[in-house]
């Protein structure tokens, strides 16, 4: 029982990370099998066991832990393949999911030719019941139970497969929701259901209703998918723990996930910052402030680490639907290798949001794509080796790429194909810079003080340029850059969050009820850690509260130092930390009382597994293992020129590589601009220092 496996199932590839008994850590990529996730995973496991030279069953039998990131929830929401779900609301509020919160995304602000998005659950499956609780938890109108029973009969007639219950102010008084839960068990005993005060006990009816609707709608599907995964892995020999990665970036046992499938939203990408943080430990860094970027074919994901902490938020959105549970803040934009470039009538370049995806793909794939994409641009400007793409699994056509770029961009702007390729690269990098600025500004963070950590096949091509534009001084490409999320999964902790709502304020602070709430949360957290069999010494409980100045309506998540607030001095400390947080984010503090709306705990079970190492079989290396130089187009060098190319797999640790240069790695290429210096560390990571003018 000595191996550990972590798997991240993506649309194109299934990434795997193997931790051997010695601590040696290796990464693998295996093609995904759309529609048959388990087959893809087992293929990947076979790949590893072949490498190890043992039978798959024998290998699985020796696995102590099998951790999995899965897109099953995310994809069901994106594709609308979730269960037919009924929604029960307070009468008079059937349109909460339709109204959402108003407003429009920045990109759509001036576009009036758009269809209004449909609600997550259609109106004809949404039914109101007579009841009403007020903001203090008082009952304005008693629950009409006969009406509930009628509504449940109607739900059955409508053949719903799951039921979400989200009443106004259930966070102040859950009795009506609880009673409806009982009535569901009595009158519709086989239909799974979710209650809003349990799924996401947060203020604002839209956010709570949306989270509850999503949770209920995923129950049938996730139960099936997770049971199937568990059954197959057990059949194939797995005896160790099976865990899944949640929105919070931690792992939890599969049984917990079936109860609250909403926690599987963004499972996978949520683990990327954990990978970066872990690598900082291993590299012996004394501080960790990082912007983590992961770029593949269709999207560019950004997350943050601030002073070793990974910020969480409750505004996670999939396909326009907010899922509300605390999640690692990952910002995704649709910029990837497949993003299509075009020139508008005034002569300005735009890249994306349209994408060539993997089919037909960029023009250079030769699969029928004819539009100019970012990958075509990177090929034409010499950054990619046409003969060695995706680990050598594919040969790219420079001719196709040049043709597409010339036709779609160059001809309109009187640029050569190479110049046009550089322009496409610059435009997509500017979009990435804007996205990073948005997430950092919102957090009151100055990117110049941060290190950029790079993952994904395409990120090495753009990272140095983006970091330079943002005024950042360092870029780090970890040895597991190609499987960033899978590695994050392999090193993540057991984790689950619990929340309870309770309103109070600094000028009339209810110590008794606050401490009773915190105690209840502590129990929730410890019971979870008990279920996960986490030993005493590895347990951590992190408390937080949602707070705001009186008169404001948006709360901020405020970390609490400890799980009780016993007296005025301790409250004063909490107040001071709120002032600091508000000042940092919005440049002002106020003398108004601070109101608290909700209390949370994150229960964490640390999984110590010793220090990994990433060495290959061959630890030597050359000082500067040059490959044939490549002709690139870099504006910094006045256009076309020849620059050296180094073989990243044979580099010797500690040697300095000066830009301009390219470092080819099996799954990515790192582009070094002038005034940059790269070093390989003994772990196989690459640090790039940028001299900012």
């Amino acid at each position, binding site marked *: 029982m000595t191996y550990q496996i972590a798997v991240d199932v993506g649309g194109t590839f299934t990434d795997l990370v193997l931790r051997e008994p010695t601590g040696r850590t290796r990464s693998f990529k295996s093609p995904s099998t759309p529609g048959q996730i388990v087959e893809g995973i087992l293929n990947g496991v076979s790949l590893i066991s072949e490498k190890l030279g043992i039978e798959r069953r024998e290998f699985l039998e020796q696995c102590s832990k099998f951790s999995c990131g899965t897109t099953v929830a995310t994809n069901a929401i994106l594709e609308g393949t979730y269960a037919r779900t009924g929604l029960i609301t307070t009468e*008079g*509020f*059937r*349109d909460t999911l*339709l*109204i*959402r*919160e*108003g*407003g*429009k995304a*920045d990109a759509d*602000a*001036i*576009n*009036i*030719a*758009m*269809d*209004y998005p449909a609600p997550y659950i*259609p*109106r*004809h499956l949404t039914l109101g019941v007579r009841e*009403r609780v*007020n903001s203090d938890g008082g009952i*304005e109108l008693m629950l009409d139970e006969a009406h509930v029973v009628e509504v449940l009969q109607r739900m059955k*007639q409508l053949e719903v497969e799951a039921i979400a219950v989200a009443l*106004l*102010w259930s966070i102040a008084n859950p009795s009506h929701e609880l009673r409806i839960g009982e009535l569901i068990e009595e009158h519709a005993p086989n239909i799974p259901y979710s209650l809003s005060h349990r799924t996401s006990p947060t*203020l*604002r*009816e839209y956010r709570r209703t949306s989270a509850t609707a999503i949770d209920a709608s995923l129950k049938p599907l996730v139960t099936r998918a997770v049971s199937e995964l568990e059954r197959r892995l057990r059949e194939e020999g797995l005896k160790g723990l099976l865990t899944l990665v949640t929105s919070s970036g931690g792992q939890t046992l599969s049984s917990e996930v079936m109860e609250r499938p909403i926690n599987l939203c963004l499972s996978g990408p949520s683990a990327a910052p954990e990978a970066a943080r872990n690598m900082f430990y291993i590299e012996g860094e004394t501080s960790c402030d990082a912007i983590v970027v992961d770029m593949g074919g269709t999207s560019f994901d950004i997350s943050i680490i601030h002073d070793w902490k990974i910020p969480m938020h409750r505004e996670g959105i999939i396909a326009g639907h907010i899922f509300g549970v605390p999640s690692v803040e990952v910002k995704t934009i649709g910029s990837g290798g497949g993003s299509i470039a075009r020139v*508008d*009538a*005034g*002569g*300005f*370049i735009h890249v994306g949001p349209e994408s060539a995806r993997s089919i037909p793909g960029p023009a250079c794939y030769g699969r029928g794509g004819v539009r100019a994409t970012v990958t075509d641009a990177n090929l034409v400007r010499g950054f990619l080796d046409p003969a060695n793409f995706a680990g050598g699994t594919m040969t790219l056509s420079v001719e196709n790429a040049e043709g597409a770029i010339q036709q779609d961009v160059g*001809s*309109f*702007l*009187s*640029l050569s194909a190479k110049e046009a390729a*550089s*322009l496409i690269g*610059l435009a997509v990098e*500017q979009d990435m810079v*804007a996205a990073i*600025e948005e997430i950092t*500004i919102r957090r009151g963070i100055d990117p110049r003080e941060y290190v950029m950590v790079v993952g994904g096949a395409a990120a090495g091509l753009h990272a140095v340029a983006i970091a330079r534009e943002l005024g950042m001084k360092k870029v780090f490409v970890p040895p597991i850059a190609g499987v960033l999320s899978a590695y994050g999964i392999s090193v993540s902790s057991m984790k689950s969050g619990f929340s309870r709502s309770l*309103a109070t304020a600094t000028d009339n602070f209810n110590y008794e009820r606050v401490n009773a709430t915190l105690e209840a949360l502590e129990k929730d957290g410890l019971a979870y850690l008990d279920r996960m069999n986490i030993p005493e010494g590895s347990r951590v409980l992190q408390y937080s509260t949602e707070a705001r100045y009186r*008169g*404001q*309506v*948006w709360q901020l998540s405020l970390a609490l130092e400890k799980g009780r607030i016993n007296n005025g001095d301790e409250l004063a400390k909490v107040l001071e930390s709120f002032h600091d947080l508000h000042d940092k*984010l*919005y*440049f*002002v503090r*106020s003398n108004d009382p601070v109101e608290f709306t909700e209390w949370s705990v994150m229960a964490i079970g640390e999984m110590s597994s010793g220090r990994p190492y990433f060495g290959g079989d061959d630890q030597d290396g050359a000082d500067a293992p040059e490959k044939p130089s490549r002709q690139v187009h870099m504006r910094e060098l006045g256009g076309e020129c020849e620059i050296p190319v180094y073989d990243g797999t044979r580099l010797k640790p500690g040697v300095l590589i000066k830009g301009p240069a390219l470092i080819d790695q099996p799954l990515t290429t790192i582009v070094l601009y002038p005034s940059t210096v790269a070093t390989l560390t003994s772990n196989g990571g690459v640090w790039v220092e940028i001299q900012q003018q």
Partner: protein
Amino acid sequence: MNLVKHERIVDGADVDVFTMVVLRRRFEGIIREMINALFKSGRSGVLNTAMDFSCSLTDAKFRSISLSQGLPVHVGAIDLIPRAVAAKFGGDILPGDCFANNSPYMGNTHCADLTLCVPVFVEGEIAFYTIARAHLGDMGFPSPTTYAPHSFDVYEEGLMLPCVRIQKDNRDVSEVIDICKANIRVPEQFYGDYLAVLAAVRTGEARLTALCQKYGFPKIKSFLDAFQDYAERMAVTAIGKLPKGRLTKEMMYDSETDLYPEGIPIRATIDVDPAEGYVTVDLRDNVDNLPLGINMTESTTLASCMTAVLNILGPDVPRCTGSFKRVKVLMREGAAVGKPRFPAATSAATTNLCHALIPHLQSIFADMEAGLGTAYGSIGMPGSCPVISGVDPRHGGKNFVNQIIMGYWGGPAMHGHDGWLTYGSGGSQGLLLQSSVEVVEQQQPIIVEKLEIRPDSGGAGEWEGAPGARCVIRPRFAPVRFMINSASRKYPPQGVRGGLPGACMNIRRIKENGDAEDLPITTDVVLSPGEKILSEGCGGGGYGSPIRRDPVLVLASVRAGRISPERAREIYGVVVRDEEEQWILDAKATEILRAKRPGENA
């Protein structure tokens, strides 16, 4: 793609296509930072729940650069603000100054919008002006509201800041702050809002200064020229695709003055010259200033025209001075739709006539050619968007005054798209956030009993106007004053090209005994506990004949309870039947029914 090949954007070494991309994004990023500095920090409800504010900047020549992130009515003529600063202070403008303006006669939108403007100095000269504008919950009105359609003249509209210096050497001019606090019911809320707006303009100042250092002022200047040229080319190209023509149209707006007992006419003539690349909007033939607060200001009239025409030109055309140059607006001083003549009242200049004018102009394009333009959207604010005030027993009887934004819906239909539900008005075009019922009830001592789609309220058409909301609100403990600035009572938003109007807007007071009475268009009423307000928002107008609407869409609306089966049959010519408690489409009966109305199917 049938793009014409053209030369590079700019000749010369300074600004190439690469620099264009980078600097355009930098300027957009600076505005985003300004918005962020303001967001969540403001205190009044409209600010921090609805995002009723906008940030912007212009160069020294008063040219705006990127207005796509602001509320259309706020930013469409933002250049008037720095123009007022320059006209009034000329050579007496120094680094560290900040100017405050809420005067409709000095280029501001209306008196409830507090606008701050900071001159940004680079290499000793003014290079930019940063501007932030926020709609405050109270700006020192005689009554606790921010719109007063019944004001007779400007002297009934409370506190005026006619472009005054509010900061010198980066420090508050305390006398000005004192005057504001002395005139505003919620002085602490005001000062918090002021700090938030100030944070925005100062953030913009710092970022612009850094930008010029990084790229060099000469390069930035060349970019500013090149970008305006680019925006203008985009506008010319888009106008070139419009049909040539000239059309005059009149609409009626609900009147509250004896001068126009039947309604107030709004007239516009649009002249499209695709060959020369100009659109001219002529508003001179409008009625004189009214003895009401709904007169438009120079700022809102210009912004309405820019918004409407640019909506037609499409999202690719940048919103800035370069493209606006291609829209000529002819207006008359002293006209209600135009430029006010002192001392006309204008406190409701961003709403009432402005809500009407924007879709009115868009509808003229619809009349010009099938597929173009839009129907009319919501005009006036429904009863679910009141400014409410009173005392809150939960906080020791403290005063409150706030505007809540619920059920601000009713978007106009256009070719290919039903109306946008949370449209609100042409001035905000869906950008305002809608308040959460729970937040509303936590912040104010009221109960919202209902907030749902009002069935059959969207204007029927091949593409349907968005519905309005049915909303019921009641005070919880003590009397609450509701001030509502509505319209669309007699003249609801009209359809175009055979599309039908949306339902009218209604506001009713429901007494404790259940009796209901209609409340006027402009409502100022105090409700006691036990009484309720019933608000019925208007729907947007439809586009194209309802007989052409896809029957499957009609069926879906019936199933969802958005339209009645009777409406499906009578208006849409679609027959649905109730089979085993589920509505289904009777395709045959529909075909027969629709065949009887051939004339409408053109």
